[in-house]
């Protein structure tokens, strides 16, 4: 109870601090803070349409976060999640392109998700091999592969997959609507995407909490040397965790293709990979906290679109709020550890 009270108090303190800082920045920029926050709120939760937009951002963000929980659990910093989203999106696009003339769009939609899962997974496994066999730190391997994935996307958009006639930054030729992930008629919400994400969340919670794999990931993350003496193979589990994380990210990329953009665009990841890193850190690496925090972040992202329209403000405000929240949380955690040690 004492603990709960303490953490509740800390969170209130943190949120107040972040609000104060954002207000200060708004005042600096000469914008009315109350209006800005109001537009942020109304822009994300003001109507059912807005709410479904938030959910459509929540889906890929939560999928990425799910994957990152695996890699964080085993002590890896999977910065490459961004590239894994892209790799998933590219694989999905490739499969859908094959399906254009097949006459079985539903089947190829399913194939696209399987392909995205494998594409993202393999992209991550590659980084995992570089880490375990080549001794390349996973942060550098991941970051490098992010650039490679981005370059491949651009090459595909301007090369082999360019629109008939003219290549354009706006991406490849859109798929016909029967290859889109079905949405509710009035709203732009994909029930299957929502279901997939919830399944991924529950699956992740189950794997980490109940299975031998989850315990092995935790054990290796805490002490790889001792885990080896207890009969676990850290290298293999690391590659496996990377594969799972990449698979989840690949699904997020596939969702971006099939549910949101319906084509491959240069910024297909929408930076959800990087944002998911923040989500998981803010969730203190716990699965069940990620959906809530991802939802809040999705609200900020969608709501901030209103700022340039209504107040001629840059939409970077949402990024500032997200960033300060994470920094503040990490600071609080470090501070508490320090206090406990004293």
């Amino acid at each position, binding site marked *: 109870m004492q603990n709960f009270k303490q953490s509740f108090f800390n969170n209130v303190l943190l949120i107040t601090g972040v609000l104060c800082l954002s207000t200060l920045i708004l005042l600096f920029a000469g914008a009315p803070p109350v209006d800005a926050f109001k537009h942020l709120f109304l822009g994300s939760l003001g109507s059912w349409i807005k709410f479904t937009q938030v959910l459509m951002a929540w889906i890929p963000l939560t999928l990425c976060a799910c994957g990152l929980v695996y890699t964080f659990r085993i002590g890896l910093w999977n910065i490459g999640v961004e590239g894994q989203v892209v790799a998933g999106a590219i694989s999905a696009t490739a499969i859908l392109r094959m399906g254009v003339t097949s006459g079985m769009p539903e089947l190829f939609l399913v194939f696209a998700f399987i392909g995205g899962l494998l594409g993202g997974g393999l992209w991550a496994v590659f980084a995992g091999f570089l880490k375990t066999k080549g001794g390349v730190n996973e942060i550098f391997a991941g970051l490098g592969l992010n650039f490679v994935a981005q370059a491949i996307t651009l090459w595909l958009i301007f090369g082999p997959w360019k629109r008939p006639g003219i290549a354009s930054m706006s991406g490849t030729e859109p798929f016909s609507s029967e290859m889109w992930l079905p949405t509710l008629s009035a709203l732009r919400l994909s029930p299957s995407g929502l279901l997939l994400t919830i399944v991924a969340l529950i699956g992740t919670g189950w794997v980490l909490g*109940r*299975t031998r794999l989850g*315990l092995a990931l935790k*054990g290796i993350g*805490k002490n790889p040397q001792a885990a080896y003496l*207890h*009969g676990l193979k850290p290298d293999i589990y690391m590659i496996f965790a990377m594969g799972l994380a990449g698979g989840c990210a690949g699904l997020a990329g596939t969702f971006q293709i099939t549910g949101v953009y319906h084509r491959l665009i240069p910024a297909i990841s929408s930076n959800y990979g990087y944002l998911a890193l923040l989500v998981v850190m803010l969730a203190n690496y716990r699965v069940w906290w990620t959906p809530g925090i991802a939802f809040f972040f999705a609200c900020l992202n969608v709501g901030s679109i209103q700022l340039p329209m209504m107040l001629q403000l840059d939409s970077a405000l949402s990024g500032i709020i997200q960033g300060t929240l994470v920094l503040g949380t990490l600071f609080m955690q470090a501070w508490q550890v320090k206090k406990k040690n004293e």
Partner: protein
Amino acid sequence: MRITLRDIHKHYGNVHANDGINMEIDRGAIHGILGENGAGKSTLMKILAGYIQKTGGTILLDGRNADYSGTAQATRLGIGMLYQDPLDFPQLSVLENFMMGLSHGLYSKYSGYRNKLQDSCDFFGFNLDPDAPVHSLTVGERQQLELIRLLALGVQVLILDEPTTGISSVQKKILFKALRKLASKQKTILLVSHKLNDVETLCGRSTVLREGKVAGEMDQPFDTRTLLEWMFGAQPPPPARHEIKPGQVTLAMEKVSASGGRAGLRDCNITIRQGEVVGLVGLEGSGQGIFLRLAAGLEKPEKGTIRLNQKFMTGSNYHTFKSQGVTFLPTARLEEGLIPGLTIAEHFALHQKKSIIIPWEMSKRKADKGIALFKIVGTSSSTVESLSGGNQQRLLLALMPTDPYLLLLEQPTRGLDMESARWVWQQLISHADKGAGIIFSSSELEEILLVADRVLVFFNGTVVKNVKTRDTNLNELGRAIAGTV
């Protein structure tokens, strides 16, 4: 300096590590602090050294109330502590470490400190190369360096926490001589130990702590029986010596060479038989560490062959060795042996049969059984880092397969009190009686002579002595360790 401790308390949550301790330490005394693990010795000393803050009580230095926080302040008041693991900078040289905290300002004149270091070394009979990097030094040498560094800082009270753990008997002699010299110069020495021998040879007076309280105080000459009773309640009998019945060859090394440690290992030819208990001794890094790791498959030999139960095992990894019944227990229990953050039940779950879903109920039952059988103080949901050193070792033993073929142990009783050590050996010897081979390293010659059937002495990467314990003695082993066979 004269130290008076009045009613010192230290609480960690509900645990009273120090529960109203009163003590008086005279100027120029060598005062022993005895007690088993968890008796509160280290806590009390760390309070005195300013490393941790007391919950209540007063410290008087020369009769004056001293209220300080932090080690820097304590050092300024003249109190310095030599920790179990020396706090130094391995990458820096001996001289640079010596200057740490001594030199001020941007520009340090090395030659002055070099002379100062040399004078101190000459005074104590230490042999330290000022330009050698500290990581190339043995634990004993690092201790010597830390000692003269603290003295150069003007320390009047020197606290030593288990200083004889992990150092050779030669280094121990040098250390004790240095401490006596210091005491004769009116410095106050506090020696924390659970080794009665050390305290008996060195200290004029000693205080026994038990469960956070003072159990008794005694002047030289000490009555060992009474001291043991204060420490443990009743005197523990020595562990039962088992009768050797040589069986088949379990482990055979032929002309094995490997690098690692300080000296590596060269041309090692050794066979170990079933039911044999073999002790390894030598200065730190003389080859015994790499020997154990080679026998476990944790390191690979550069030359030679390793056979396990006639099977060719050269180049196989630890998991292959493990499947043949080999178990390796490292000396760094929390760093290498156990997984901090995981509970006892989770450790048992890791050792359960391969299954996708963890049978938590069964793991918990097994953990409870292990806790009861191995007398571990803790519950199945205790994290391993919350256990004391002795209980961590008990847990490692509880996790071991029930019918090991070959046990490889790095200092299995390091940091354990006598009662725990005795208990650990009872368990291990029962395995040997059932036919397991046991190889262990230890820095305690007495322990090896007591429990081992055979002893291997390592010097500079080779086995210089391979002898039955009943055909040798302390003196002979000591000479072999120092390289004079």
